């Protein structure tokens, strides 16, 4: 009976049921995305970072200032080595008919065994058979217009010049080796690819070693590094888990937080949908009570009703979760990404989302059981002060936690995330109060429509409910729009710095920078070390940083000097390190402290000599002079950073043409970090999409609330019309009511969004990200005003006037 009644009730309010189910399913989907996104990003970044080496443990590669080609035979005799895969890796210009040539990466395997490191997923054709057969990725084939059976012509890197042809035997999917595929990679036989560089015999410059089971990777690495044949090569472990974690975290953090915001909003939406049906429930409960239903039975019925909605919502949410998750991954990462769904996390998300939604749905029931049957039947308003007390208490708690967050050292982080929710909750709690207060004030005026509005606002649940929904929606959407505009403007500023930068790698350590500056179109050229290193300190766990190995790095970007510039320059000259402000803020590392750098197994300690500020690499960079690197680590410069006077792409092309006979890899900086920049852009686009979506969702929920509430107010409208209020005046009253709701929501949403932005920035520290406080008031106000304006005009836009008429109660 209870079940039957519950289901009948659900069927009687299809719109509300649907809205609830939808909100719960989106909530569950968002929970799943929050739980799973970082691990999925981690897997993807892991796959990208290990795309080249497969399951290998150790990589031996050419070293700038060291040896360039590698002897392979001695490796097979080393204890602990199970498998050796020798390759040659070159960058060469692939001809494109009349168009300028484009860099491709040639990767040749010993005996043409392209699957030595990982399997190749062929889309068409076959694996290479002859020594000059190659396979390329689908993306490369599309870009260059290549097909199976076609020819790739590359320019030789020898002093005599000439070209070498390769013949496309197959086209592979963009997985495995081709996962990031930037520049486009051509796989083939090492003997044919060596001939691009030198003839006579096959040479190798990247060798991958798989260690025997049970052997210690670092011991084997040290054994190899100590051998004469490999002493002047880079011998490193293939997988840098710290670096992968850092990259994954940087990408996942903004999306996780945005997803949390959406989930929060959905939960609020669920609560509000249920809350908007309180009057019906009260009436229904009263009727059932009058015919003899006990409280227990009523409770059971409502529980079943809520449970049914939550279970269905959770089930649909599980299905939706996979789709939304896939969409998010493909937007942020790659359109060819394949992923797996963790069933446990999916069930957990469904359970959590369903449980939280169930809890939210029970809130209105408290109201039902607190009032008497008669009060429920007539819908008497709650005159209790509990709401006011709760609102004040919430505001007090929020104030205290905000003070703790900002004044107590170490307060920023998890508490910031909690404060983010509390601030928005405060806005949601306070906005209806202001609506009622404003309503009461308006009833004191003389204008009939204003008075009517005042009474509606003061007494009807509709206006305050809408204000509450709008307060939450506006706060979150203003926050997201602000975050979007700020991150994109920071990102644009950052890319503007990189726009004229060209990276020339694979250079000899004694290359003359003047060779580059002598070229037209080159403003500056700085020879430096440019690579990734692991940095740690007593205060900070090991993290991957980008090493800018030259004092001239200070000229590459517009750093802000927290330590005076002269002191920074002097510190670099003394062999000290310069770090970003974020390291000080996040970990407390400051001038005078010591940091440990681990560069391919070479460990050294440097004193921190200065602090600067720039958004470069999200603050994960360290500047050290080339001399200090040479002394402490035996590291030689390997990259020339060129600042172009105009277009970086044109300058890069000109450099390639000028140094065509050398194995340089010349690429505009933005293109070198295309994967990262594109991923970040995708993240920002996702945040923007979420912002728009949330705004629309909040608006939709508010709209649903309006229409649901209007149904009950039809008698009131008829009464007013009957009392002589004109249709225009009534329309004016409704519009004014909407305006009041929107204005009150805006009044609280604006400061809430500012505080929420501060909490968000502080909460990002949990992910190791540091940003200075920034708030784009223009974006926030604009977003809020648009929502408010549209909400205020709903009566006009939806033609409420047409529906005015006398109705019987």
């Amino acid at each position: 009976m209870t079940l039957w009644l519950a289901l009948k009730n659900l069927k009687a309010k299809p719109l509300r049921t649907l809205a609830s189910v939808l909100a719960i399913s989106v909530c569950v989907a968002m929970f799943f995305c929050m739980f799973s996104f970082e691990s999925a990003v981690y897997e993807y970044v892991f796959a990208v970072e290990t795309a080249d080496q497969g399951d290998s443990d150790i990589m031996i590669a050419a070293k700038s200032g060291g040896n360039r080609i590698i002897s392979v035979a001695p490796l097979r005799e080393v204890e602990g080595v199970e498998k050796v895969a020798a390759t040659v890796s070159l960058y060469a210009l692939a001809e494109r008919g009349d168009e300028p040539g484009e860099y491709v990466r040639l990767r040749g395997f010993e005996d043409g065994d392209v699957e030595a490191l990982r399997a190749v997923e062929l889309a068409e054709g076959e694996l290479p058979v002859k020594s000059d057969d190659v396979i390329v990725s689908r993306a490369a084939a599309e870009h260059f217009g290549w097909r199976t059976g076609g020819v790739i012509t590359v320019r030789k890197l020898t002093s005599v010049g000439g070209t070498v042809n390769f013949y496309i035997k197959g086209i592979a999917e963009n997985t495995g080796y081709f996962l990031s595929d930037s520049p486009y990679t051509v796989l083939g036989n090492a003997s044919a690819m060596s001939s691009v560089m030198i003839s006579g015999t096959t040479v190798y410059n990247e060798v991958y070693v798989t260690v025997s089971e049970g052997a210690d990777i670092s011991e084997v690495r040290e054994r190899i590094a100590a051998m004469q044949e490999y002493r002047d090569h880079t011998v490193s472990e293939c997988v840098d888990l710290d670096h992968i974690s850092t990259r994954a975290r940087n990408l996942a953090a903004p999306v996780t937080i945005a997803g949390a915001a959406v989930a929060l909003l959905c939960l609020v939406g669920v609560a509000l949908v249920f809350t908007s049906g309180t009057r019906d429930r009260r009436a229904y409960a009263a009727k059932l009570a009058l015919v003899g239903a006990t409280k227990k039975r009523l409770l059971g019925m409502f529980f079943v009703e809520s449970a049914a909605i939550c279970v269905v919502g959770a089930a649909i949410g599980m299905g939706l979760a996979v789709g939304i998750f896939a969409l998010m991954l493909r937007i942020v990462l790659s359109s060819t990404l394949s992923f797996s769904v963790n069933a446990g996390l999916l069930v957990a998300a469904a359970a959590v989302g369903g449980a939280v939604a169930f809890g939210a749905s029970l809130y209105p029931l408290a109201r039902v059981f607190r009032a008497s049957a008669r009060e429920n039947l007539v819908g008497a308003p709650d005159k209790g002060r509990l709401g006011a007390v709760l609102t004040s208490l919430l505001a007090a708690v929020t104030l205290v936690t905000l003070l703790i967050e900002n004044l107590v050292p170490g307060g920023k982080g998890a508490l910031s995330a909690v404060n983010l929710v509390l601030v928005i909750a405060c806005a949601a709690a306070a906005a209806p109060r202001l609506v009622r207060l404003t309503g009461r004030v308006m009833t004191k005026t003389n204008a009939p429509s204003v008075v009517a509005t005042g009474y509606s606002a003061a007494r009807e649940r509709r206006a305050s409910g809408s204000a509450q929904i709008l307060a939450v929606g506006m706060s979150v959407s203003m926050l997201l729009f602000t975050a979007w505009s700020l991150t994109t403007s920071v990102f644009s500023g950052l890319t503007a710095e990189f726009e004229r930068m060209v990276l020339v790698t694979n250079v000899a350590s004694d290359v003359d920078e003047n060779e580059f500056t002598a070229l037209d179109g080159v403003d500056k050229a700085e020879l430096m070390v440019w690579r990734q290193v692991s940095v740690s300190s007593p205060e900070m766990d090991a993290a991957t940083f980008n090493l800018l190995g030259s004092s001239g790095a200070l000229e590459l970007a517009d750093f802000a000097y927290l330590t005076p510039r002269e002191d920074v320059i002097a510190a670099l000259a003394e062999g000290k390190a310069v770090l970003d402000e974020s390291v000080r803020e996040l970990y407390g590392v400051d001038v005078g402290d010591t940091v440990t750098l681990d560069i391919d197994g070479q460990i050294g300690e440097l004193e921190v000599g200065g602090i600067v500020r720039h958004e470069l690499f999200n603050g994960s960079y360290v500047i050290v002079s080339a001399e200090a690197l040479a002394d402490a680590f035996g590291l030689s410069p390997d990259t020339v950073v060129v600042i172009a006077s105009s277009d970086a792409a044109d300058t890069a092309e000109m450099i390639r043409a000028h140094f065509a006979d050398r194995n340089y890899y010349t690429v505009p900086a933005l293109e070198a970090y295309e994967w990262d920049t594109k991923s970040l852009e995708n993240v920002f686009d996702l945040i923007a999409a979420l912002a728009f979506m949330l705004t629309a969702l909040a608006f939709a929920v508010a709209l649903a609330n309006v229409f649901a509430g209007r149904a009950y107010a039809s008698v009131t409208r008829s009464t007013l019309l009957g009392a002589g209020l004109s249709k225009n005046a009534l329309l004016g009253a409704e519009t004014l009511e909407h305006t009041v709701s929107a204005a009150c929501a805006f009044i609280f949403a604006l400061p809430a969004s500012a505080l929420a932005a501060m909490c968000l920035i502080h909460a990002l520290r949990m992910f190791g990200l540091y940003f200075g406080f920034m708030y784009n008031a223009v974006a926030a106000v604009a977003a809020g005003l648009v929502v408010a304006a549209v909400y205020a005009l709903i009566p006009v836009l939806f033609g409420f006037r047409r529906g005015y008429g006398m109705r019987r109660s």
Partner: protein
Amino acid sequence: MKLCHDERRYPRSCEGLRRLFAVLLVLALVLTTAFTLAACNDDKGQGVSPEQERTEAVGLFERNVLAAFNEKWLPDMTDDEIAKLDAPGDHVEAQLWTDVIVGILYDSSLQTAKIRLAAEFVASEDGKRLLLDARVNADAVMELIAEVGFTSEDVSELGFAALRAVADRTDDVYTALVERLNKIKNKVESAGFNNIGEAVERAERIKESLKGEETIAQTVAALDEAEEGIKLLFGFAYDFEQTVGTGSSGSGLASILQSISTGGSGALSGISDADAFVWLSGVVEGIARFGDEMTEEKAASVKRALASVRECFDGFAQPLEIVRDLTEWLGYAESAVGEIGLMTDYLTAMAVPLYDKDEKGEYTYDLVCKLKSLAAEKDNALSEVNMLLLLSEAAYSFMNEVSAAQLKAEFERIAAEGDRQKNMLLYFFVLMLSVYGGEQVEYSSDVTAMIVALLGEWSDVLFENAWREYVLAPDEVSESRLRRMSGSVLNMVELLNKALTENGEEPVEITVGADGDANGEYTEEWRAELARIADECMKRASSFAGAPLPSVAVDVISEKLDEAYADMGELAALGDMGYITDAASEDAEKVRELAENNAAVKMMVLILGVLFSH
């Protein structure tokens, strides 16, 4: 959108409008899907099958090759079209051989795109020039192959297929040539008619000079048996040429060394000594690997096959000069193939200084440093003295690895084999030792006999060339040359007969004259008889001194080897000398003295000079 203001009043029309809207929506969806699928369907290149593409590529190759010879020549011309050509006979012959090549290309594992590239290259000015040169010039062949981008795998495969086709199809080609030309003879006028007539006669003569079907079948069978070994040989030869060849086809060891020396350019310019060591040791290991892969069994089957080829083409008037050069090369290869293992061992023995280690057991890279410096050396005097130093080191290293007794045993084995080419090499070596030694040359009977043998061999080669030219184009000039060459051979025989008679031995019977057979004609029988007389002359010359001449040569060589090994101690100090930077220094003087007086160094210079003489 409200289609009906009042559904109560107009229920049916509202329902109908809804249905119409639904149908339009579905139709729009279907059409959009269809367009999308069509747009996404990439049909580019799918219409042509791989077989069609390959047929087109070889067809283009054929077209361009013929056009390179004569721009009026096209594939598959009709009889009437051929009849109108200036040289219809030449066209038909070129067409038939091109068909053979095209068939080889089609059936090969060469990528279709490579065939197309080859076709396009042949159509270019450079390609035409090389193609025309390649008919007579082996270097042009190598350059053509390198320009198109053939790999050693391609060269192995195509080289073997071409050799087999020449053995198997020559008869068919000239039979077809004769048939076709006879068919169109009546349609041709004036100059073309003469050309056809000449072509038919030439073809008949070529066919006559071919061996019988049985011999040809045996040759083809031997080739098939030795396929793997022959391909290995071709591949290695091509790679070796690319590595150390100084022709325009190869990068050349010198240019490679220059590119890796200080001041060079290219991707490996200025590379470290360790890198240069890795590269050089790779080259040495490649040579050693080839030696290991060419097992005794493989070498024996290759030798048999090449001997069969030689017999098959003995006396054959090979119309294609390049094929003649190739078969000549194969003749040398036949002699050398059995020694590949030994030669690769000796080469790697000479390369031992490359792996020199110090007391700690680490490589010193001394040899690498010297090579790099030598490659970059601009001073000729310093180049010369340092080259001598390196040769001396190589000689010392070799002598350390291979004892005099071992070497002598190998020479004796070679002498006992009776291989004509190897014997010539022995004689040549002895003569060079005598001449280069700076000693008074004593023209003993042994030496005289060797000179005669060498001259005889040389005359024989010239005679065979003259015979070939005569068969291909019998005219006054070629006849005159044939007469002269056969006269030279007979003069050598008469010289020997005089010496034999003086020694109380039976002279070699001369049964033919330089003017042809009894009828004054130059026939295949006459040629065969003359060849037999020359061969007998060579054999009798070897016994002229009372002992087999090859053994005599080995004795001379052994004596020189003993001298060289006795002076080995002088070479020991050379390893400590670094790169000489002062041509007037004591070290430089010491090296020059050694080069003049040390037998080992002299022999090393001689050997390398012989090996790299072409």
